[in-house]
Structures are given as structure tokens and as C-alpha cells.
């Protein structure tokens, strides 16, 4: 099985269309053809089109049943002219050549083919939308979380540990307090809690009494077992991604384990039963959040030995001991993770959007509302801080409900809303819990919670606050943001930008950026990466899991370290390696190097490896199981990096099997396969963008030759303004991409799409151009770009909403 089949590589990234639109507009002055309408060629062109083309391509290039693909693309008039001259009409290209071909090309280009024509025909507007699934999950978690307070956040990692010299957690016998990086211990028959320190006289006396008792018991049993001691670990678990996590406890002793629930352990293994015990538990967690953890361990002399290891299997990874970076010694409040499954959002534009509602979605909303409201009622004493016998219970619960609904709706309630959502739900003589239940349920079903503010009339400061928080967090505003809105402190750019900057330093922004980078790099589609075991022995599940970790460690350091300069993504020549990866990729980690969970950053400069495009995970992802795929690599660079729009292949072609052309290199085979006119129109761009990465094989290892022929890593790219850039090898290409305005604009475009979830051109070309310009001025700082996109879009949307309603 190839890692990625051809069919999946041609999944239409329609987001790229919009990306290209903006980029094309941004560089309009450099476009090789006049975009003025009504130019002479058009009338002739229109006539020719109607006579010779429309029967297949349909009026305005919309397509027909025979040829449904609309005539939309990013070729220049010259390219179109030559294409028509040589190939159109199909089968009779001689019917339309020379000036005729040029005239019809111009007509097509101006009327409907080009991005400019597309924009003219359908000027994008801001979209009215509901919360996406991710936004719903985050909003509900933060809504409940707004009543529980937050945990401590700092750089401390590992778990807080307390060791007791008794099999129960007797505070008087606590001998050690420390931090454990991981929980992975095999004490055999030793007692780690026996520090040999002198206890106080009183303790000594007690200890002697107990020892006597213990000795008596031991005499009775005469068993050479483990020592009696116990440990309690506390802190939080950091979930890097949203998904199902499996936690596995390996022990021969008694354990209890709490995760994101304080009232009941998720594993109760206090009864040890049998040996080599595994306790497994699965739980869905939201990425970028901390979950409270508590682990109690007890070894008794009934046990043979004392040992424990705590492992996990995070999404897309193999099982491993929970690493230090995923643990903190600080408590965090419980997070409500909605269990109701939602149907996935529409991603046909390249990013999730909430612009459609379906019955399945509405059912999920209803179920989730029932789930959450039931949770709130069950947890009411804790969330509302009202005891069941409180004399002012009703008053306090009404206040709780007002706060709940206002937080959910991201704004204060009007009197009318208060009447509907609060007063009407508190019925005379009814159990107060039932009233709260109804109020919470109704608020979660309400369009005021479920729909975003855009297009709901003129935007005020509350709407700006909500725009910001959804852009940066995919969630509701926090207290500070709500207060700023209440005080009218979101009026000007400086005020809004200051909030955005503050909000960058938050786990939710980190989580959102991570998902964005994964989508940008197509990592979210590279599951189940496998290679042929004979060709690439050692490239197993575990190695793939480590590679993914390596990439994520890099992205984390890049985005949140000292220098989030976008160009580094192309130029950095270091890769995080652990021992296993180092061995596979022919590196040595010098002993004593300080490692992070076993990973150190290692230079690959001498290979000419540069940037995240040459990270082995991506190189392996954009490759077949036995051979590389310059096409996959090239398509990725053309679309996601340069923002080019590529159509699906016009004809179905299965890749040529390498063994049929045993003598050919991959490069030669790729050229042979795409040496057809219909292919060349796109592959002339794709192939030469993929070839420079031929220096790396299908598992991302450096190579100098293939089939005993030296690697030819020459490539080129014809920019939108017609200049040809040539590069030899991955590093030269990376240097070109890092400085290319096309790359920068495309990245800004995709940042807008993913974070703001609105068509950027709907906000106006000028404001988008400003963002692109500031990106450069800010040294291509990705963090500043995100804050800028959130701020600029919020202010622009407010402006538009006000003019619209005048």
C-alpha cells in the first residue's frame, strides 16, 4: 500500500482557490495580461466561444453534463491561448488557432476563468455561521470552566510525588516529597520511602508499636514479599491533541487512578488480583487543555515485588510511558468534555466552516444540550456554590442562571431575553433543580449561543470580543475580554490588538495554531503511515510515532520559542531525534546532551536538509511505500506553500510500477508518466517542485544515488509574474520558498481562513494587503500574524456591519 494513494493526493483543496484569489489580486499589477473589461478581443472571443466552446463548456464556462468541470483556473492568457491553439476544440484543434485562440482566451479569462473574474462575478461576503464542532466543544468546556476557576500554568513538568513509609498514605509517615518526571519504577523488594531518617520520639513510639504488630503478622505469614510503602502522585495531564486517549497502568500492586473526575477513580485497582496487571482506560480529551490527575499506589508484603509504570496511547501515536512534557505537578479543574458525537463540519473549502445545518447536527446539539445540562444540575453545588439548604438558594440560582446564559451568549441579556431565558424557566412551586435544568438546556439550544455574531446586525464591543476569542481560541471570551467590552475598551486598533496579544499566551491559542499547522502541512491526513518492511526495515509504527513527536516538538519550539519567524520553517536544518531515530537516520547523540523526553535537536546541515518540508515525517508522508513521490511532494508545495490552484488530474492514471521500469530512477519514471499533453499543463509546475526533494528517499533518509545513478535534484518554478526560478536541491528550493512573496501571501491567506473562518476578501482587499505587509514588517513573526489577523478582521467586520446597516 502506498502511503498516500494518488486519489487522496488529488482531494480538491478548494481552500486553495480562495488563497489563490487573494494572492492573484495582491499581485494584480504584475499579472501578464490586462484585466480591463470590454477590450476588443472580447466580442470576437464571445462569438467564437458561443459557436465552438459553449456546447461542451456551457454558458459562462459553467460546464455541461458531458463536461461538468467549470472553466476556472490560474493560467495566464498566454498559457490559455497556447493551450486552445494546440488542443481545442477537442479532436479538431485546427478550428481555433492563432488570433482566434487568443481572442477566445481573453474572453474566457476576463468573463469567468480568472480569479479576478470569479471575484467580480461573486464578490465574497462575510458568512453567517453556526459554531463549528471544535468551537462548540471548546465553548462548552470554557462555559462550565468559567464557574470553576483555572489551574496554575508554568513551565514545571512531571508530577508531584509523596512517598509514605506505610502501605496507607499516612501523613505522619511521609518521608519524601519530590517531583517525578515520569511514573516508571521497578523497586523489586526495596522500599524507596525508607529514608533511614530518625523520626521524632512520638513517631518512634508509634512506629515501634506498629512494627510489633506488623512483625507479629509477618511471623504468621512468613512471606518474603515486597516492602510496605505507598506513593501518591498528583498534578495534571496535558493533552496535546483532541481525541481518544488510552491510559495504561502496569503494576503488581494496588493502584487507584483519577483522571478529570474528582469523585470517582477511573481505575480502582486497590484490589490487586493476579500478576503483571494492566489497567486500561480510554477517555476523550480536548487538545491543549490540562486534566487533573491523581494516582495512588500501595505496596504491601502480600505482594511479591513493587513496580508501576504509567503509559498512554495518545491519538496517532503508539503506546509509551507518559512523557514528562505531558505532565505538570499542578492541579487543574475538571474539564467538561462533551461525549455526544457530532457530525463533522464541512471542510470542502479547506477548513471547517459552520455554514450549514443538518438534522444530524441539530440532533447532536439537542443531545449535547441534555448531556451538559444534566452535568450542570448534578454539579450545581460546586458550580453555583450553593448548598442544598441555603436560605437564599433560589436567588443565588437565578443569579447563576443569568451569569450562565450571559457567558454562553457572550453579552448581557436584554430585559426581554431575561424574561424568556430566566424568568419563564423558573416555574412557581417547582423544584429549583428542574428550573436550572430547563434554563441551561434552553440556553444551549439557543441561536444566540449556537451562531456567531457576524451578520447579526451592527457589531458592538461584545461582538468584537467574541470575534477575537473565536479567532484565537475557537471559544467564548474570558472574563478580561468581557470586562473590556463592558467598559468600552475595544474601540480602537491598539485596544483590540492589546487584547489579542494577551490572548496569544494561552493554551487554547497554542492548540489552535497546532491544528492549523497540522492542516497546512497535511499532517492531519498522514495517519497509518506505513512502508514496505523489506525495502525499509526498521521503519515501524514506533519509529513513525517518534517522527511525529519530533515534528511536533519542532513546531512547538518554532511557534512558541524566541523566534517564530515563518522563514525558519523552510530554513532550519535541525531535526529532533531520540536514540531510535538517530540510529535510523544515521546520527549519533553524544552522551550527556540534555534531552527533552529523550529528544535532542540535531543538525542535518551537511545533507542540505532544510526546513519542515524536509522533515522525515513529511518526506515519508508524501511518498509511496517503496519509492518516493515527487508528484505528492510537488503538489503539496504548489498548493499549500505557494497557494497555486491545481485541478484534479484530467485523466485517471495509475502510477507506473517501479518494477516495470527497473532501470529508471523515480525522476525519470515521473517524467515518463506525465509526458502527455493533458498532464503536462499541471505537471510542468508540480514535478520540478517535487524533484529537489529527491535527495531524500521514501522514509526521508538522505541519498546520493538511486539505481546507481546520481540523484538529479534540479527543479524550477515559474512565478505568477512569469519569472523562472531554478534551484538545485532541497536547500536551494527552501531558500527560494522562504523569500517568495507568493509563499508569504499564501500563508497569510490560509491563516485568515483557518483562524477567522471568513473569506479574507470579504473583509476587503486593502485590509488583507495590510496584513501581508505587516507580516513582512514584523519579521514574518507568526504569532504576530495571528494576532494581526484576529484584530484586523474584527475591526473590519465591525466597520462593514455598520456601513451595511446605514
Amino acid at each position, binding site marked *: 500500500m502506498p502511503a498516500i494513494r494518488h486519489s487522496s493526493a488529488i482531494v480538491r483543496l478548494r481552500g486553495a482557490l480562495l488563497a489563490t484569489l487573494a494572492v492573484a489580486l495582491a499581485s494584480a499589477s504584475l499579472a501578464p495580461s490586462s484585466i480591463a473589461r470590454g477590450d476588443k478581443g472580447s466580442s470576437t472571443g464571445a462569438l467564437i466561444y458561443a459557436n465552438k466552446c459553449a456546447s461542451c463548456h456551457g454558458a459562462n464556462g459553467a460546464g455541461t453534463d458531458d463536461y461538468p468541470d467549470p472553466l476556472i483556473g490560474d493560467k495566464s492568457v498566454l498559457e490559455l491561448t497556447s493551450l486552445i491553439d494546440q488542443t481545442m476544440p477537442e479532436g479538431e484543434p485546427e478550428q481555433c488557432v492563432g488570433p482566434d485562440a487568443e481572442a477566445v482566451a481573453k474572453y474566457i479569462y476576463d468573463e469567468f476563468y480568472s480569479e479576478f473574474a470569479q471575484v467580480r462575478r461573486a464578490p465574497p461576503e462575510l458568512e453567517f455561521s*453556526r459554531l463549528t464542532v471544535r468551537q462548540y466543544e471548546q465553548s462548552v468546556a470554557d462555559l462550565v470552566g468559567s464557574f470553576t476557576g483555572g489551574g496554575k500554568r508554568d513551565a514545571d513538568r512531571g508530577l508531584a510525588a509523596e512517598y509514605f513509609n506505610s502501605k496507607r498514605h499516612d501523613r505522619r509517615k511521609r518521608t519524601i516529597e519530590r517531583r517525578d518526571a515520569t511514573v516508571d519504577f521497578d523497586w523489586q523488594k526495596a522500599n524507596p520511602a525508607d529514608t533511614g531518617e530518625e523520626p521524632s520520639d512520638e513517631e518512634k513510639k508509634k512506629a515501634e508499636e506498629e512494627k510489633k504488630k506488623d512483625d507479629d503478622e509477618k511471623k504468621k505469614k512468613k512471606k518474603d514479599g515486597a516492602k510496605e510503602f505507598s506513593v501518591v502522585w498528583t498534578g495534571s495531564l496535558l493533552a496535546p491533541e483532541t481525541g481518544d486517549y488510552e491510559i495504561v497502568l502496569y503494576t503488581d500492586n494496588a493502584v487507584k487512578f483519577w483522571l478529570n473526575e474528582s469523585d470517582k477513580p477511573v481505575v480502582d485497582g486497590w484490589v*490487586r488480583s*493476579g500478576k503483571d496487571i494492566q489497567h486500561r482506560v480510554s477517555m476523550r480529551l480536548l487538545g491543549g487543555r490540562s486534566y487533573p490527575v491523581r494516582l495512588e499506589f500501595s505496596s504491601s508484603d502480600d505482594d511479591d515485588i513493587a513496580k508501576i509504570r504509567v503509559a498512554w496511547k495518545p491519538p496517532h501515536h503508539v503506546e509509551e510511558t507518559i512523557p514528562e512534557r505531558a505532565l505538570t505537578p499542578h492541579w487543574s479543574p475538571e474539564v467538561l468534555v462533551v461525549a455526544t458525537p457530532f457530525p463533522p463540519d464541512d471542510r470542502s473549502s479547506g477548513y471547517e466552516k459552520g455554514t450549514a*445545518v443538518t438534522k444530524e447536527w441539530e440532533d447532536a446539539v439537542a443531545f*449535547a444540550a441534555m448531556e451538559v445540562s444534566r452535568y450542570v444540575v448534578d454539579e450545581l453545588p460546586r458550580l453555583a456554590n450553593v448548598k442544598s439548604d441555603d436560605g437564599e438558594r433560589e436567588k443565588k440560582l437565578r443569579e447563576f442562571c443569568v451569569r450562565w446564559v450571559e457567558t454562553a451568549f457572550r453579552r448581557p441579556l436584554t430585559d426581554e431575553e431575561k424574561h424568556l431565558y430566566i424568568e419563564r424557566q423558573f416555574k412557581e412551586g417547582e423544584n429549583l433543580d428542574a428550573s436550572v435544568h430547563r434554563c441551561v438546556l434552553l440556553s444551549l439550544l*439557543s*441561536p444566540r449561543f449556537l451562531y456567531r455574531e457576524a451578520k*447579526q446586525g451592527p457589531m458592538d464591543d461584545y461582538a468584537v470580543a467574541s470575534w477575537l476569542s473565536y479567532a484565537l481560541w475557537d471559544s467564548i471570551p474570558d472574563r478580561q475580554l468581557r470586562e473590556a467590552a463592558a467598559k468600552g475598551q475595544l474601540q480602537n486598533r491598539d485596544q483590540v490588538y492589546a487584547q489579542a496579544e494577551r490572548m496569544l499566551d494561552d493554551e487554547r491559542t497554542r492548540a489552535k495554531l497546532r491544528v492549523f499547522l497540522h492542516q497546512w502541512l497535511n499532517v492531519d491526513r498522514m495517519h497509518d503511515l506505513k512502508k514496505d518492511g523489506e525495502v525499509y526495515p526498521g521503519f515501524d509504527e514506533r519509529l513513525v510515532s517518534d517522527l511525529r513527536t519530533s515534528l511536533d516538538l519542532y513546531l512547538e519550539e518554532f511557534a512558541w520559542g524566541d523566534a517564530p519567524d515563518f522563514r525558519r520553517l523552510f530554513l532550519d536544518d535541525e531535526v529532533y531525534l531520540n536514540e531510535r531515530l538517530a540510529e535510523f537516520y544515521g546520527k549519533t547523540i553524544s552522551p550527556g546532551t540534555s534531552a527533552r523526553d529523550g529528544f535532542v535537536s540535531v543538525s542535518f546541515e551537511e545533507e542540505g536538509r532544510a526546513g519542515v518540508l524536509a522533515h522525515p515525517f513529511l518526506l515519508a508522508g508524501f511518498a509511496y511505500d517503496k519509492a518516493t513521490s515527487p508528484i505528492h511532494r510537488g503538489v503539496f508545495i504548489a498548493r499549500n506553500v505557494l497557494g497555486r490552484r491545481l485541478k484534479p488530474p484530467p485523466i485517471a492514471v495509475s502510477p507506473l510500477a517501479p518494477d516495470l521500469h527497473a532501470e529508471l530512477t523515480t525522476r525519470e519514471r515521473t517524467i515518463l508518466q506525465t509526458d502527455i499533453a493533458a498532464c503536462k499543463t499541471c505537471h510542468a509546475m508540480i514535478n520540478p517542485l517535487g524533484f529537489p526533494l529527491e535527495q531524500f528517499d521514501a522514509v526521508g533518509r538522505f541519498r546520493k544515488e538511486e539505481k546507481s545513478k546520481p540523484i538529479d535534484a534540479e527543479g524550477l518554478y515559474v512565478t505568477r509574474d512569469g519569472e523562472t526560478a531554478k534551484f538545485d536541491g532541497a536547500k536551494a528550493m527552501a531558500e527560494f520558498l522562504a523569500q517568495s512573496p507568493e509563499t508569504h501571501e499564501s500563508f497569510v491567506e490560509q491563516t485568515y481562513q483557518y483562524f477567522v473562518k471568513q473569506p479574507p476578501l470579504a473583509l476587503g482587499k486593502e485590509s488583507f494587503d495590510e496584513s501581508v505587509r505587516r507580516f513582512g514588517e514584523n519579521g514574518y513573526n507568526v504569532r504576530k500574524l495571528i494576532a494581526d489577523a484576529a484584530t484586523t478582521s474584527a475591526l473590519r467586520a465591525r466597520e462593514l456591519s455598520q456601513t451595511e446597516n446605514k
Partner: protein
Amino acid sequence: MPAYVDRRSFLKTLGLSAAMYPFLCNLPSLGMESSTGRKKRLVVMFSPNGIVKKNFWPDEAGELKAFKEILSPLEPYRDRTLTLHGVCDKIRGDGDNHMRGIGCLLTGVELYPGNIQGGSHTPAGWASGISIDQELKNFLQANPATKTRFGSLEFGVSVPDRADTWTRMSYSGANKPIAPIDDPYQMFQKLYGNVKDQATLRSVLDDLQEDLAKVKSVVSTEDRRLLEEHAGFVRAMEQELQSATEGAAVAHATPELEPGIREENDNIPKLAKMQIDLMVSSFQADFARVASLQITNSVGGARMTWVGVDEGHHALSHEPNSNEDAQKKLVKINKWYCEQLAYLVKRLDETPEPGGPGSLLDNTLIVWTNELGEGNSHTLDDIPFVLVGGGLDYKMGRALKYKDVPHNRLLLSIAHGFGHEMKTFGNPDYCGDGPLSDLV
């Protein structure tokens, strides 16, 4: 397979109508069992610490002519009762007799070595196999004709809030004890929570439509379409909820629980009654064909002040047979347990079988049992097995006396009664001659 921690697991299903399916398919008119014969149910009721032999066992084998004091509450149902004397729990290995008594009672298999130290013997962990109630649940759930919403329900009364070998009777597999639900309100939530929540949902839909209309008025004409679609789905939901609630109402009414009964010793009689009532209504709705009722736990120490006994049950059970006072009290205690059984029998007898002839009792076999034969000797011989009801067509109204028969054979017989013809159950060494032949 990892356990999926999800207290909201009933939501793990798509579509309102799908979630309400259990109610609809439990409608008698839609029941599927008519074509496949009558329903068969099993109830296991547990009480702890052994019994007082002389006041329990009928003197003679053969027709049940009279009950001793402890079994006297069953008098109205004497002809529907079968006592089995001489059935012995032969499972040995790790753990003390109380632990093995409850842990091997329904599993018929040894406990794993572990860290739970009892009063004597070696420490032990959990049972190393599935219990018969869960085996039968799996058997019935595997067949669409006998599949029910829950398959089995594990009721408890005053079970201590700790998971150890003494508090668990049912096992879904080796090392997989099942915690009985001893809070009637929690059980109610499990059985009827979604009905209540759906009623609440229905009650807010008018208000929701009102506000949807208001929000619609502020958005543009084209954006209104989205909200109109949304409103359409809300209307559809309202209709689905309406037909589902009506359907459920036809099936049977949701029982009412007396509110605010705390889980404490003196409330045990009330809690037991609530749980029995819930069990009967869950059978009426055909939520499950297998149920257990675990009153306290092995070594349970209920103080039955309501029958005039102030001491804890377990402490009393250690008193020698020569302690007349203790014996009298133990008879009172065990008679009270039997009264609970009799109440369950009465409720099942009074309740007609939905859609079929006869009563629920006609199609239910109740097995009342205990972890010990006798409290002071801690014997695992002569485990008290009292069977009531017509579920498996046993010939009732008899006292059977066996000579030292391993209880695995009784477990096997029950499985065969359900048509689940296993060769062995639990430790095969004790299944020698197969099911007991003289029950039918």
C-alpha cells in the same frame, strides 16, 4: 478491550429516534418474542453471613409441606418454591471463605492471588472468570429475539462504597467485577433518566422557536434560510419526542420514587423496597431479562433495628450455636431477608406479563443465595439455595436434598434452563455429571 469511561454513555448514539428505539421496541405490540416463545428471566438475590440451619432447611426431602421460621414469609408461594439442600461451594484456592463465598458463588471458579487479606487463609484478588448471570446476559443479548436495552441490571441495597472481593458478586469476566447500583435514584436515572430529560427538552422547544424567530428578524434574507432550516429541525424533533413519549406511556408508566431517602442503615427496608419496585418495572418494560439484588455484602453488618436487633449481622453470625439469644436474632435477620424475597415474589406475581399470558413470576426464576452455609463455622457446604417462580419450568413445591453436589452443576443447570447448553461452567473439575437432572 479498554473500559470506556463515560458516565454519559447512553448518549453515544446518533439521532433522537435511534436513542428512543429501546422504548418503542419494548412496546408489547411490537415485541418480537411472540414468535420465539415466552420470555425467561433470572433474578439472583443475595444476603450474607450464612443462615441458621435448624430454622431454615425443611426436615424432609420431597413435597414442601411446611416452612421453618426463616422461610415462613414464602408461605403463600410454597407451591412455587424449591429448596436445594446439599449444594456445596467446592472452590478452594486463595482468599478466606467469605471472599470465596461471594466471589466464587456465581462464577464457580477460583479467585486470583492478590493483596486482599481476609480473616484467615491467603490474600486474594478478584474472581478469575465470568459469573453465571453475566454469561446468560451475554447469551440473551447475542440473540436479537431476546436482546433487551440493558441485558442485565445489578441492583444493590446498602453495599459499602468500596470495591473489594467482599462487595462484588457479578463479574463480566476474569478480574472484571461489576459494581451493583445501590442508589435507587441512580438506578432510576439509568432506567428513566432520558425519558425525564427528553420531557424537559420538549418543554423548552416552544420558547426556543420564539427566540429563533426573533434572531431571524435581525439577519439578512439569505442568512434567514439557515435559521429556517434550523427551526424546521426543531419542529421535527418536537414531533419525534411527542410520538416517542406517547409510545413509552403506552408501554408502561414511569415509576415514582419517594424522594430524599438517604443511604443509611435505618433506611435499608425503604431502599430495598424501592429497588425491588424498580426491578419489577424494569421487567415490565423489558429493559433486562437478568437481574441481581445484592443486599449488603459478604460479611455485611446491617443492624436490623427495625426487627429489634441492634447488633451488626456479621458480628452476631460468629456466635456459637449454643448462644440462644444470637440464634434468635439471626433467625429474625434471615426472616427479614426472606420477607424481601417474598415481596419481590408478590410483586412479580401481581404483575401481568406484558403481551403474554400469566404473570411476571410465571416467567421468572429467582435464586436466593448466600456466601456461606452457616456463619460461625464459615462452611461453604450446604449453601442456602432457595428457588422461586416458573421461569425455567422447574418442578416447584419441593425440598430437594443432595449429597455434597458442587454448586457448579446448579449454575450449569440454570444455563441449560435458558437453552445455553454449556458443557462446563467455572472450574470444569466440579461440573462432573453435568446439570442437575431432577430440577424439572
